[in-house]
């Protein structure tokens, strides 16, 4: 046991001390930070930019609609009526949106002046409200940023709610009530129901599952390749022979797989912890970057709630799946003599892995389908597909355990097979073995 520990410690420390490990581990969180905060940051900035936009409202309705619209554009949350109360002064919409009230006859002349203004970059655009706006909600916007979906939506909302408010008031609804009615915002939250009745965001679950599956895939590739290179190094530098005179090849193999696995858990532990940290602190961080006013801006999705059983299963899928592929990678490393040969010989293993990843997309779109069911039970694809499936949709515990069991049994088989190839291959130099020779190695040892 002391020797196994010595091998594990060497594998672990040598890799963790490596400067590339430090770089990748540090840049991982930076990457997560960018991925999580940047979209939120951009959307917040986008909102603010849209507000600041220097646009002109041209009101040719003669009903004061322009003022209402302007107010709603400037501050979509506040009432559409002239502000009142003690804070009236401070909450008055910033004078960003000027309203030009014109008669229907002089509209064309006013518009041509505004076009010149826009062309001279003194204005980014103008919104025209006329009788058609009151009649059937037709308004017209012209400007430099005419194709901006965000702004267009904002304008539509402002015009719709202003027109609606006017109509309600005309129909006898008290102004204040009319205002609150038009400001009603609807948001359909998709909530997932699980066996235990706990809920979480449905879309969040699928995205989270996708992230998990992708991370498992990356981890297996990254650390599997690390093992392959490690075995190859021991073989080409002939250290293997010195080591094998002290410990059994099985111990060396086990130490390698465990040591590198521990490196993986460390790295992903750091990543997950920092991702959670950034996620939890995102509001404050964004606030610090773009100013407190934006701090409550909406960002992406909520993390789904995850049951302890799922977490345990996810960790086990990682450990078993990693072990399964790591021992295959180790066997490949022991089979070949150079990195070039390794690149070729590793193809079959990579193909099995990529095969699973190809189906991540279809399973994400339909996590309850037959494809997801089958792939999450095949031991080679289960470590990637089942975590995706079970975070996206509830899967009976029995099926999860059956899938885990399948992966475990296959992993043990892979260890058995690889240990035998490893034992013989480590001391074989020269040409790559054929399949028949490989089989002899397996039987021989």
């Amino acid at each position, binding site marked *: 046991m002391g020797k196994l520990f010595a091998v594990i410690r060497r594998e672990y420390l040598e890799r963790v001390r*490596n400067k590339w490990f430090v770089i990748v581990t540090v840049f991982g969180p930076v990457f997560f930070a960018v991925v999580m905060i940047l979209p939120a940051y951009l959307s917040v900035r986008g909102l603010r930019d849209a507000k600041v936009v220097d646009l002109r409202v041209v009101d040719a309705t003669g009903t004061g609609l322009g003022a209402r619209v302007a107010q709603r554009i400037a501050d979509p949350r506040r009432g559409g009526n002239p502000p009142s109360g003690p804070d009236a002064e401070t909450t008055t919409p910033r004078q960003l949106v000027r309203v030009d009230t014109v008669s229907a006859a002089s509209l064309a002349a006013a518009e041509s002046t505004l076009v010149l203004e826009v062309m001279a970059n003194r204005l980014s655009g103008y919104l025209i409200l006329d009788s058609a706006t009151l009649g059937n909600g037709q308004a017209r916007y012209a400007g430099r940023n005419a194709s901006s979906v965000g702004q267009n939506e904002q304008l539509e909302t402002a015009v719709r709610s202003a027109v609606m408010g006017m109509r309600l008031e005309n129909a006898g609804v008290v102004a204040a009530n009319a205002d609150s009615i038009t400001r009603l915002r609807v948001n359909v939250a998709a909530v997932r129901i699980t066996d235990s009745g706990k809920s979480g965001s449905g879309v969040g679950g699928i995205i989270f599952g996708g992230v998990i599956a992708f991370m498992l895939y990356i981890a297996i590739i990254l650390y599997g390749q690390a093992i392959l290179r490690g075995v190859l190094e021991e073989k080409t*530098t*002939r*250290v*293997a*022979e*010195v*080591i094998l005179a*002290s410990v059994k090849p099985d111990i060396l193999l086990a130490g390698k797989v465990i040591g590198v696995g521990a490196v993986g858990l460390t790295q992903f532990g750091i990543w997950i912890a920092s991702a959670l940290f950034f996620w939890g602190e995102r509001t404050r961080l964004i606030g610090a970057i773009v100013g407190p006013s934006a701090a409550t801006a909406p960002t992406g999705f909520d993390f789904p709630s995850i049951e302890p059983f799922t977490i345990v299963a996810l960790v086990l899928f990682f450990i078993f799946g990693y072990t399964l592929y790591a021992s295959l990678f180790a066997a490949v490393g022991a089979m070949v003599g150079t990195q070039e040969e390794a690149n070729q010989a590793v193809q079959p293993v990579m193909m099995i892995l990529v095969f699973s990843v190809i189906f991540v997309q279809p399973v994400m779109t339909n996590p309850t389908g037959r494809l997801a069911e089958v792939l999450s039970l095949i031991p080679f694809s289960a470590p990637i597909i089942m975590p995706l499936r079970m975070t996206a949709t509830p899967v009976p515990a029995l099926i999860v355990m059956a899938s885990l069991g399948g992966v475990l049994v296959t992993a043990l088989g892979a260890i058995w097979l690889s240990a035998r190839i490893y034992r013989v291959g480590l*001391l074989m130099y020269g040409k790559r073995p054929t399949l028949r020779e490989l089989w002899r190695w397996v039987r021989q040892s």
Partner: protein
Amino acid sequence: MTELAIDIRGISKRYADHVAVRDLNLAVPRGAVYGLLGPNGAGKTTTIRMILNIIGPDTGSIHLLGRPNTDRAILDRLGYLPEERGLYKKMAVRDVLRFLAELKGLDRRTADLRIEEWLERLSLRSAEKDWGKAKVEELSRGMQQKVQFIGTLLHDPDLVILDEPFSGLDPINAQALKDTVVELKRRGRTVIFSTHLMDNAERLCDSVCIIARGEKVLDGTVASVKAENAGRTVALALDGSATPEVMAVLQDRTLVERVDDQNRFFEVELVAGADSQTLLRRVLETGACIQRFERVQPSLHQIFLQRVGATGVEEGMSGHG
């Protein structure tokens, strides 16, 4: 406690296309310096790997220091220097040595103490430069060999196995190696090494075993091997060139097996059972003037050539003996 450090009985190892070792018996006494001699491809490395249980023999048994070599505990008392040297290139020298020591069951504290001793002893650590901190790949080849050698001996093994230890060594390191082997013997350790350099073997070894084509050709103490193979070689030096009469005697196949004719000097190998006195009398009878007539002890090199011959080296089997 058995007297044998290594007791090999009837081991064979067959690979797909050839037999590497065939029915080999070997007895290495404790405290001996033992040479395993043979041409390339003779089965030396295979034998050594079987001793170390890196590969298992198809048949036969191997006992080390009185215990079967499948007993993992026995491996901790062995030190092994493989023919192909290798260390983790990216690791610091101290870390590599500590790792190798730990694999032999040495605790870290003892290992660290001994590492410092050895680094100083082999001048890898001095006031101005401490190579222990350097990565292995930053060391010169000679220094790497020193490090590997330290790794072999760090746990103070009872049985030291060196595979072609002299290959690739510069004269200074070769001398250091010889000194160490002698010192190990003084301290009662057993050393077995393989080589195809007979001079080193002749000077260092108490006993030798010559193997060729996977089979033992001869073994025993160097003295007995020489004695058994002596008596049949005669050094003959004449005053002046050989006369036809002398040549006739030397070419008598009932008396002389082989003669190395160097004009005035002859190395004569008698046929088995022939008497050197008969040869002396016959040469004298020709009237030749004899400057020197001596029954010589053949060198290991000669014995090797004589017993293994050029045929002992099979083409295409070079590499791992």
